[in-house]
């Protein structure tokens, strides 16, 4: 592995200061499951590795005053799925963190790192986007917040400037009669990169009609994409399989996938339709059960 120094600050301010030091080429280390591979393979260079796991704020996993969820950027996947309240309220997020790598990866990998790494196939990003989650970012001049959906700007690119640190991902409260689900397609049963993935969110009114719908697809464009036309086709309707099949067909038009060894364009488009339909079905069941 290339040579570097290591620092483990205990405050966000110290971390930001270390990350902005002009004499260093610094990188953030959360779970390390992406960055250590990149450093070892020399696809990234660093003279200073800043471990952010000792910062209290980044380890926080708690309900917010508004009834949403504060997910610190250094919280591991396995900590997330062990919290019963999260499984209940943010089930699409839990669907995703349970399948990020195997158990050994989940013990270390964070949703913050998954987001910052900005892989088009990242499992946690479509769930974050359907919940309208917000990224809280620490900078040298203070804090800023932005929708997670705007955080990734391209393949392995994000909005963070030098010296900036993702502090947390904040989820809005989970209303009654809402439900969500996430699925990916991989060639093996476990441990593989998605050929395509989808997350869906539905909110029903008292009469059981769809009030709000969100569908986000991954691995079929440089960043996760919203399937807006499919979402519109659902609003005001009663959830049923036929409706979801139509939405699935519309969803696949939002995808602009590439051909590669994992799948062809047509295959990925087809998967978008299937995964949208399936996640909508589960989201509708979960919404109806969430009284």
């Amino acid at each position, binding site marked *: *592995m*290339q*040579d*570097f*120094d*290591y620092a*483990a600050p205990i405050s966000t301010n110290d971390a930001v200061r270390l990350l902005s030091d002009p004499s260093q080429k610094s990188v953030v*280390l959360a779970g*390390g*499951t992406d960055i*250590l*591979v990149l450093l*070892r*393979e020399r696809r990234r260079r660093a003279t200073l*590795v800043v*471990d952010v*796991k000792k910062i209290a704020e980044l380890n926080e996993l708690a309900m917010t005053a508004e009834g949403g969820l504060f997910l610190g950027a250094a919280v591991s996947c*396995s900590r997330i799925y062990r919290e019963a309240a999260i499984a209940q309220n943010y089930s699409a997020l839990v669907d995703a963190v349970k399948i990020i*790598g*195997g*158990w*050994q*990866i989940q*013990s*270390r990998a964070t949703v913050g790192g998954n987001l910052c790494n900005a892989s088009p196939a990242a499992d946690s990003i479509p769930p974050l986007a359907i919940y309208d989650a917000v990224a809280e970012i620490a900078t040298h001049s203070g804090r800023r917040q932005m929708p997670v959906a705007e955080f990734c700007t391209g393949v392995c690119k994000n909005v963070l400037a030098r010296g900036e640190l993702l502090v947390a991902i904040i989820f809005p409260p989970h209303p009654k009669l809402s439900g969500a689900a996430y699925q990916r397609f991989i060639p093996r*049963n*476990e*441990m593989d990169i998605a050929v395509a993935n989808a997350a869906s969110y539905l909110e029903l009114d008292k009469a059981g009609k769809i009030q709000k719908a969100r569908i986000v697809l991954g691995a079929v464009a440089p960043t996760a994409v919203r399937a807006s036309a499919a979402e519109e086709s659902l609003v005001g309707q009663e959830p049923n399989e036929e409706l979801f099949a139509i939405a699935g067909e519309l969803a696949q038009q939002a995808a602009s996938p590439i051909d590669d060894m994992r799948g062809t364009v047509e295959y990925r488009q087809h998967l978008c339709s299937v995964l949208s339909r399936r996640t909508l079905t589960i989201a509708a069941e979960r919404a109806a059960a969430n009284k």
Partner: protein
Amino acid sequence: MAKKQLITATINGEQREFACEPRQSLLEALRDGLQLTGAKEGCNNGNCGACTVLLDGEPVVSCLVLAVEAEGAEIETVEGIAAGGKLQPLQQCFLEGAALQCGVCTPGFLMTTKALLDRIPHPSEEEIRFQLAGNLCRCTGYDKIVRAVQAAAEGEQT
């Protein structure tokens, strides 16, 4: 060269000190620094699970942990599971069930399985396969490993 750091961690129940460079992995520190060669290097990029150890009770791939991150931590390696030179029932089940051939993957499987049985004493076959998916074996075809884990779980009932 970045300065070596002195790290203190509890390893297999014993407080140990070791020096390492920041760029060294926990796997390197265990094998080269502490002569604990149970954890194996398969892929060195997190994919095979041969280097699995328990870090504060959670299975991790030690090739993707920096040794300096282990400061103050509790680490368990395969060397720590047999007490007083006697194999643990879990190890015995792997041996009797012929759940290994070349044996490179075995320490990793044992550590993940230990963590699994600590949490779920009687896992279903599906749970076993899902939780052990991060450990790869090139030799056995997995069935014998799954049977060995089941045998170990049954043994714990009696």
